[in-house]
């Protein structure tokens, strides 16, 4: 196995492991938010949570796959480590960006769900209500 091929394999192993770790964290901790957003409807929250994670996997694996090619020949271990640092660093940044984007979506959904109970406008006056006998 040439050093080039091992570089690719190490890149894939690290990227895939990182993606799975971030997705699982998101899946585990995002659930609480979603249950709150859907007012305790756990079945719906789990379903949306799962769909979000699938999208997360697709985008990240897509990026990992597209960014695989190095474009130059790696001959020494030093070059291999340098190549890996650039590639894995980019994957980390993309994962971080996606992660914050997901958090943003969660918090926005939550805020929206909570403000929808407030009337759109303030009242003009107050009048005592006579309860029916």
């Amino acid at each position, binding site marked *: 196995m040439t050093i080039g091929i091992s570089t690719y394999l190490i890149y894939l192993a690290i990227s895939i492991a990182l993606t799975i770790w971030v997705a699982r964290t998101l899946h585990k901790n995002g659930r609480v938010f979603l249950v709150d957003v859907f007012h305790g409807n756990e079945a719906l929250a789990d379903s949306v949570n799962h769909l979000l994670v699938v999208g997360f996997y697709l985008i990240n694996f897509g990026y990992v796959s597209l960014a695989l090619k190095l474009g130059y020949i790696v001959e020494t271990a030093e070059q291999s480590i340098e190549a890996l640092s650039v590639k894995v660093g980019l994957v980390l940044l993309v994962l971080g960006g996606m992660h914050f984007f997901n958090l943003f979506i969660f918090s926005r959904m939550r805020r929206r769900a909570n403000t929808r109970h407030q009337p759109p406008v303030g009242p*003009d006056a107050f009048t*005592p209500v006579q309860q029916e006998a």
Partner: protein
Amino acid sequence: MSYLTVLYDPECGLCKRAHAWLADQSKLVELNFVPCASDEARQRYPQLNHDLTTKDLTVVTDDGWVYFGPKAWLMVLWALARYRDWAYRLAAPELLPTTKRVVSLISQNRYQISRAAGLAK
């Protein structure tokens, strides 16, 4: 908030038509229709200015908060499952003045509109 009381004008065809349409919509907050300035309305809200309620649509929440005119329309919209988002959109600061103008225009000309649409009075 569990229900809204809508004080509507039973004399106007457009209002009756709107009433029928509202009855069919699925609601997030129940709507309770009471003809404005009727005995029922006076009995339920002894301190409300009932002359004002004959001029424009009025909505009263179950805990006694009163919304007149365009605000009452927005509250009715807000009560409907399909239109709650629209209520917020129309109540946004950029749109609220336009919403108020359009609703007032329709409200003040409700008898003419009803006649033009062939909805008795």
